[in-house]
């Protein structure tokens, strides 16, 4: 298993600041400083508030098949090209702080419990779409690998390839709190709207859940690692400045 790339906090802030400038936002540093100050002041409070509201057992509303909004689910990726994964050679590595690390083929994953749900998928941009996801509840995978007692976070790595300004490739990644991972509606999905998951939606395996914003629902997952603490690099969008918790 690759360990999450570790870079210093200062480097991280520089990097995200640089990326923002590159994104062409063209705004002054004082604005960034105000945003950061407000974020630092309120995010811990917001996160506690969100965790206080959250229950691993409270299910999000599920909809009728006739309510699926197939056209409304937009595709957001960090880069323009869609990773194409060969389903035959695909392996999902699950490791980190677990008793029984595993490497699963798609066939293995399909043999594990299956759940179908029609839920509202909410994007950070404000739009939402009612979508059907089918797949393996993450909690059932966790039962297989048996997390060690000190595990608190779940790190996901995607094959989505990205390069920084100097051309070095690094992966797309995301971290969730364990409580949200054991929520019964959090799936490793391989089915969308009753069809096999399309490549642009994250085939063969993506994370899908009604309890987190879309940017937390990482596509093209190849690796899962349980961690005791939040890694230095938390998630692609989180390291840009979006909230870690992103709960609904």
């Amino acid at each position, binding site marked *: 298993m690759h360990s999450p790339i570790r870079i210093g906090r200062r480097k991280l802030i520089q990097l995200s600041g640089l990326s*923002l400038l590159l*994104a062409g*936002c063209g*705004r002054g540093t004082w*604005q*960034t400083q105000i*945003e*950061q100050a*407000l*974020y630092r*002041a*309120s*995010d811990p*409070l*917001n996160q506690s508030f*969100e965790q206080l*509201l*959250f229950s691993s057992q*409270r299910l*999000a*509303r599920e909809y009728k098949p006739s309510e699926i909004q197939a056209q409304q689910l937009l595709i957001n990726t960090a880069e323009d090209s869609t990773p194409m994964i060969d389903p035959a050679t695909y392996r999902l590595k699950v490791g980190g702080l677990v008793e029984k690390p595993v490497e699963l083929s798609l066939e293995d994953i399909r043999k594990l419990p299956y759940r179908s749900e029609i839920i*509202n998928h*909410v*994007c*950070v*941009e*404000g*739009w*939402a779409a009612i979508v059907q996801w089918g797949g393996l509840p993450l909690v059932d995978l966790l039962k297989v690998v048996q997390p060690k007692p000190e595990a608190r976070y779940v790190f996901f790595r995607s094959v989505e390839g990205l390069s920084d300004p100097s051309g070095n490739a690094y992966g797309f990644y995301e971290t969730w709190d364990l409580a949200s991972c054991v929520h019964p509606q959090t799936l490793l999905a391989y089915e969308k709207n009753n069809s096999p998951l399309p490549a642009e939606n994250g085939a063969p395996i993506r994370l899908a859940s*009604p*309890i987190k914003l879309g940017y937390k629902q990482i596509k093209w997952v190849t690796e899962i690692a349980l961690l005791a603490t939040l890694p230095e690099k938390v998630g692609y*969008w989180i390291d*840009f*400045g*979006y*909230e870690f918790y992103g*709960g*609904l």
Partner: protein
Amino acid sequence: MTANAMPRKAAAPKQALAAKIFHWVNLVSLFAMMGSGLQIYNANPVFGGRAGYHFPDFLLLGGWLAGGRHWHFFFMWVFGLNLLWYGIYVFATRRWKNRYVASNDIEAIRKGRNPKRRNYAIHRLIYTAFIPVLLLALLTGLGMYKPVQFAWIANLFGTWETLRIVHFTTIPSVLALMVAHSLLALNVGDWKLVRSMFAS
């Protein structure tokens, strides 16, 4: 105030310190919520989606979507808690009994011949109208911030789209009320009244 042999000169209006603080905090947090709200709006316009009308930069706070969210989810506490303590204050000091529009004001608006009394009644009506609009902004905002935990809010409004539209319409509603409230304040109490609400 003691009775004076030289009356007829109206005393300068005075406001309780609590009212001034509430007024200031409310005004500042509302503009912060509107500016950052429009930033979030622009990420995917409620009307027309990505192809829809985007608000110009000078109206926006936060620089980009995440920045707008940071402003919005900081000032939601300032705005919400300010409104909460206003509610407690108005209730505990029994100001609610005579602060809001009442049947005699409606009477004055409909049939009154005294223009001053009429303006005063309209002023009270507008002031009262702020309360449901501000509460609606908070309610619909909470419904979108936590649609799973506060599923009852999302369900109350039917669809996600309705929830977004209602949340958005609180901006023009608040702005319209602000304009009317300011003009009527000037009309009812001149500059002296307006100043008393902001400063001494």
